């Protein structure tokens, strides 16, 4: 809770600095944004780790396929990262780069999920073939 309150306070201070810097030098304000995002990502990892550990425990108890969990974890990570970077690109005034990154992220996620699609189709073929 303390970490969250400190992070929120730091964010507000960074926002004030951003507003001051933006009037004088937009490049520095963008660098400030990137730096604050990275710091917040470090804080996020601290909170996400126990959640991921809990999910791993559920995965072991549920005997869930490890490959499926890895695919979903990677996909979620790619989606989060692409969203944040895309927003930074929008802030920098380059929406097209941000959009392109989102397209790339979607393509990578789809490529990662190909084994899942294949498994589902194989299952459906097996079931429908038995009917």
């Amino acid at each position: 809770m303390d970490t969250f309150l400190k992070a929120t306070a730091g964010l507000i201070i960074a926002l004030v600095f951003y507003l001051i810097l933006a009037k004088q030098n937009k490049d520095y304000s963008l660098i400030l944004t990137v730096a604050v995002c990275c710091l917040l990502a470090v804080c996020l990892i601290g909170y996400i780790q126990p959640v991921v550990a809990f999910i791993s425990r559920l995965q072991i108890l549920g005997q869930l396929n490890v490959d499926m969990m890895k695919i979903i974890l990677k996909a979620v990570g790619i989606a989060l990262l692409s969203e944040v970077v895309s927003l930074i690109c929008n802030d920098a005034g380059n929406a097209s780069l941000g959009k392109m990154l989102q397209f790339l992220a979607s393509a990578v996620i789809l490529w990662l999920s190909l084994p899942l699609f294949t498994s589902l189709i194989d299952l459906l073929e097996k079931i429908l073939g038995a009917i």
Partner: protein
Amino acid sequence: MRKIFIFLLVLVLLPVTAKAMEYTAPQAPLEAERYMPEESASFSEDLWYVIRSSISHLQPSIAEAVRISLSLIAVALLVSVLETMSGMSKNIIQLVSAISVGILLIQPSNTLLRLGIRTVQEMSEYGKLLLPVMASAMAAQGAVTTSAALYTATTLFSTVLSVGITKLLIPLIYIYLTICIANSAVGSDMLKRLQSTAKGVMTSSLKAFIYIFSGYLTITGVVSGTADASAVKATKMIISGAVPVVGKIISDASETILVGAGVMKSAAGVYGIITIVAIFLLPFMQIGIQYLILKLTATVCSIFGSKATVNLIADFTTVMGFILATLGVVCLLLLISTVCLMKGIT
């Protein structure tokens, strides 16, 4: 002269050999025999024995259902992180989530569906053996019209339901599940409409079937039961009036025979009911456990999961509920018919 004639008639009738008819219920199938008591006590005790032995075999089903539930919660937790996002990646992740949930649930759903079909077929096969016994015992009791009407109705409806389930409802269920996964992945209005149409067709057809069957039984029972009761009464009056001196005795003796046939019919019917319950109960509970745990999982996932993922789990729960309803309908059909045949003429 008249007295000599009656004396000679009695002399001729006396040496006629008597043959007893035996009405016993068919042997229970091997699968169901494991859950039935070795020695029959009372109806309630036998029924309780069947329930207890079925419950004792539920543990693997519970473990499997809990395992699937934990896997679903893990997937829903991971995907829930993206609820705050708004980009294209969110839709792609939703697609991945739908495929993952589909993979986790389609195999167990298929296994339980196959179990449901097997149970329906076993109950139908046993009904084909039990009902002729009950119908002949009922006819021997004097209810010829009622037994024929009930037997015809049950055989017809049982066959129609069995064929309808295998040829129509099962493929419809698979189509419904495929549409549900696609709708969860893509989120299209057209798929949503197709999904609700398929669900409507499945539930309406089952409801219509049970309404028609109950209506037919009610009408048949009232009309033919009244006819049979009048016929038996008339026959007894004729015997009593036509045969002098011993007419009343013969009429009373025939009533004893009818009561005897009724007792044997009741014994066969009770065994038949216990057997039907033994065939039906364990599969019903196995599917019921999966249904309840999936419902609980959907409730838990709704706290943090995405709407599409939760709806997909709920759709699979609906399918489990439908399989339960189908099993219940077939069991009810057989039990109602058996009880009606046991009840005899009013």
